[in-house]
């Protein structure tokens, strides 16, 4: 600038001109600086007002979208959330809500594409993977669904990630159950149960799912834990009774079912359910009545074995009346004929005979059930006992 060049060989008039030029340039620069500052302030005020207005609009449209989702109007939600995103571009929560609305609006392709785009910018986001898993599940793509569920479990979560991951794991287990992939569902549920707090509701939920995943053993463990609590919930008692019964743990089943029937909330159950539980309890009682418990006196046990043998023989005799069944059951008949007379004395003195007789009773009930159809009465009880005779007292 001119200001740096005062020491040039100039005439006095030229020096005066140069000073004027310097002054003019300085004033012009100062003016432009002031203009820039004023313009910056005006722009800032305009921008601040505009930004506030945009935030208000974004919030309003987001709320509208959420309301529409709650009201089950995903198409309106999509529109509202898109508007919200226009005023708050890049807001991840709104983007995810929009993608969820797209999915709810039965636009899986758009929703998947949107979630995939979101995922590209945030590959480890657990929520996005969860949504993609749900979309894949609804689109009947089990491998994609399981992969996204797994990535959701491994991904990052805002807020309480521990709780969110557990919910995802349970959702994955539900999905696996629906796919009849029971072994993997059982594994996920065991992990969930291991990490879950001792919250009765949660424990009951996991136990219920374990039952669905055909894992009554682990379900029974949880039910029994809950049943041991003071003021144990009715569902825990019912669950313990039910799973113990299905596993053949009849002693436990009877005890749990009895507590359930005596529970104050039992009467609030539907009548049909009450009836079924009472029946299960009655069967359990009968099983224990028929079961040759080793803790019984020798005579009492021999008496039960004798009775059971009579019942089974009668069942066999009735069954072989049918000629086609007779051929199939001929070896069984031969086994019965080889047995010595089953007097009380003989049974009392010969524990081996007790075992052989009861084994033949169980075998008879199983084979006749296959050949002549499901039994009734004590035969049915003995058949139930035959499934897991050693488990009765576990």
């Amino acid at each position, binding site marked *: 600038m001119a200001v740096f060049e005062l020491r040039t060989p100039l005439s006095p008039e030229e020096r005066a*001109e140069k000073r004027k030029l310097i002054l003019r340039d300085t004033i012009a620069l100062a003016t432009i600086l002031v203009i*820039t500052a004023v*313009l910056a302030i005006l722009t800032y005020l305009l921008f601040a007002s505009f930004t506030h207005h945009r935030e208000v609009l974004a919030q309003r449209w987001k709320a509208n979208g959420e309301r529409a989702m709650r009201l089950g109007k995903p198409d309106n939600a999509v529109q509202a959330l898109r508007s919200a995103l226009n005023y708050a*571009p890049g807001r991840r929560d709104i983007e995810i809500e929009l993608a969820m609305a797209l999915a709810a609006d039965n636009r899986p392709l758009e929703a998947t594409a949107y979630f995939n*785009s979101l995922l590209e910018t945030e590959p480890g986001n657990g929520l996005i993977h969860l949504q993609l898993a749900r979309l894949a599940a609804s689109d009947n793509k089990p491998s994609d669904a399981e992969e996204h569920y797994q990535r959701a479990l491994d991904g990052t979560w805002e807020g309480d990630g521990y709780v969110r991951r557990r919910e995802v794991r349970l959702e994955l287990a539900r999905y696996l159950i629906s796919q009849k992939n029971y072994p993997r569902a059982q594994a996920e549920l065991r992990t969930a149960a291991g990490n879950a707090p001792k919250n009765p509701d949660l424990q009951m939920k996991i136990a219920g799912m374990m039952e669905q995943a055909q894992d009554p053993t682990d379900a029974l463990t949880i039910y029994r834990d809950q049943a041991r609590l003071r003021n144990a919930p009715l569902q825990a008692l019912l669950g313990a009774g039910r799973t113990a019964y299905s596993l053949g743990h009849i002693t436990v089943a009877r005890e749990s079912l009895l507590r359930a029937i005596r529970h104050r909330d039992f009467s609030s159950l539907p009548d049909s359910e009450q009836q079924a539980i009472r029946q299960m309890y009655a069967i359990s009682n009968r099983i224990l009545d028929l079961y040759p418990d080793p803790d019984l006196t020798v005579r009492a046990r021999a008496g039960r074995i004798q009775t059971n043998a009579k019942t089974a023989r009668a069942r066999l005799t009735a069954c072989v009346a049918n000629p086609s069944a007779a051929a199939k059951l001929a070896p069984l008949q031969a086994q019965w004929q080889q047995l010595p007379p089953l007097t009380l004395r003989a049974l009392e003195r010969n524990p081996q005979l007790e075992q052989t007789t009861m084994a033949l009773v169980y075998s008879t009930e199983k084979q006749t059930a296959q050949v002549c159809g499901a039994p009734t009465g004590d035969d049915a009880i003995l058949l139930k006992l035959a499934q897991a005779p050693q488990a009765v007292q576990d």
Partner: protein
Amino acid sequence: MIQKLRGPKFPSLFAGKSFIKNLLNRGFLANGYKAATSSGVSKLAPTRDERLFLVLSIFIGVISGLLVVSFNIAIEWIKILTLGSAPHAGQYRLIFVPALGGILAAVLVYFFPGSRGSGVNQTKAALYVYNGYISFRTVIGKFIISSIAIGTGHSLGPEDPSLQIGAGVASIIARKFGMSRQRLRVFAPIGAAAGLAAAFNAPISAILFVIEEVIGQWSAAVLGSIVLAAISSVVVERRFLGAAPIFSIPTVTFRNTRELFAYAVLGIFGGLFAVAFSRALGYLRVRLRALPRWTQFTQPAAAGLLVGLIGYFGFFQVMGRGYGSIDQAMHGEFAWKFLLALAVLKLVATTLSYSSGTPGGMFAPTLFIGAMLGAGVGSFEKLFFPHLTGTVGSYALVGMGVLFAGFLRVPLTSVFMVLEVGGNYGIIVPVILANTIAYLIARSLQPVPIFEMFARQDGLELPSLEEQREEIPLHIEDALEPLSVPIVQGREPISAVSAAVAQTSASAILVQIHDGTWYAMTADELTGAAAARTPETPIEQALKPDRLPTLFPDLPLDNALPYFPRWPVIPIINRASRGTLEGIVTLSTILKRYQSE
């Protein structure tokens, strides 16, 4: 000049004679006065202009950035106020708001005649025709009218107006500082780069566009100032609007080389769309301007009505600048059929809006069409070739570059624009492939670029920058001829030199002075020296004080011209050995070389 400005068909573009009078009264006279005094200024402060140039570039960048931020806010606010915060199909206001906006724009254009058009050609005209003059009134008019037009839903963009606003700011500042006419002329592109950089939030693309389209050549003299201004404006813009690109770009990927085929298909479609877009604009604009003058007040309203109807019947995305829809397309939110429909309807809507004379730019519509086309091709690929891994966003991004290359005919800018906006060099191969295909198709089917076509329609003969870019300039080596004159050393006596010249009957000799410089002596000079001095006198003592210029074979041929006819021949020096001559050039060989071009 006035005849050129008026043009044969479109006197209204720059308002004809009256506008020129205004121009002369308001600016040219003042600048002429300043230009007259600028020689005095250069004597008083020889480096003043040069230093002010850089300082003012920063001010231009900052002020342009602030204005562009305000411009964008104005557009958005007008949109919210008129079309509502969430316009959607089926709203009646979509029909009448653009029409009302058109009426208002037409009325305002009457008061701000310099505001017509996109802004690119007007800036070029300022550079090449008006000595860098863009009036304050034009800047104000462009700001107001473009924001109304775009805000009310006309299918136009804010980038080209931003470019002109920046150029106008630069012109005003340069004039206020009484810069020389030469400086004044180059200020417009500096401001243009600043305005465009702020509008795009992409300084490299803006700089390249201005060099590629506005200036037409690389000029080291202004590059520094352009960069300073562009960076300053982007810094200001980012301070307000954030550093994120104008589009929310998803992760772009290119993993499978088989996808190049799909990108090539995109390039072909892009080239064809670019040609269709250019031809539609070229056709309709001429016909609408040929209509009676009074209809020019109604054309923007009619265009607005038609654009509004497109929006009303389900394609409201084509209204306004459409950045939000570009984002949605990039995130794969639209089905491919809808994307292609949007591309076609945007082409129609922009042709209507722009041809009607509504002020606004074509960058955003170009990007919109490209993005929809790209996303359409990408979605189609996803649907029918799911094993390919390219994201829809990648295709949309490449599609934007494709239209940029094919329609605006700026291949270099188009590549850098995609890379800068996408922030990912991973897709450079598809970008270059698709852009090149689109560019070549567009160029072969539509030889005249769009801005040049508009300039011709407006009666302006602006230089064809596409041709300029591809011109191969002549160099000195192209006119070089072998040494055919005697070479003597400066210490040789005049008698020996005269004898040597007499033997060859050459009309001139080259004298190598002891300090390594050269002198070309004519036979007449030698005769005079021989008559005036003793025969033993070294020849260098008989030479005039000036010396031959030092020219090298790779310099532009133009560089040699100023030294004729002072010198009969000019020796061309070897760069590696200054004592070695590559040959000589004469005026006649240079002229012959030019004539043979």
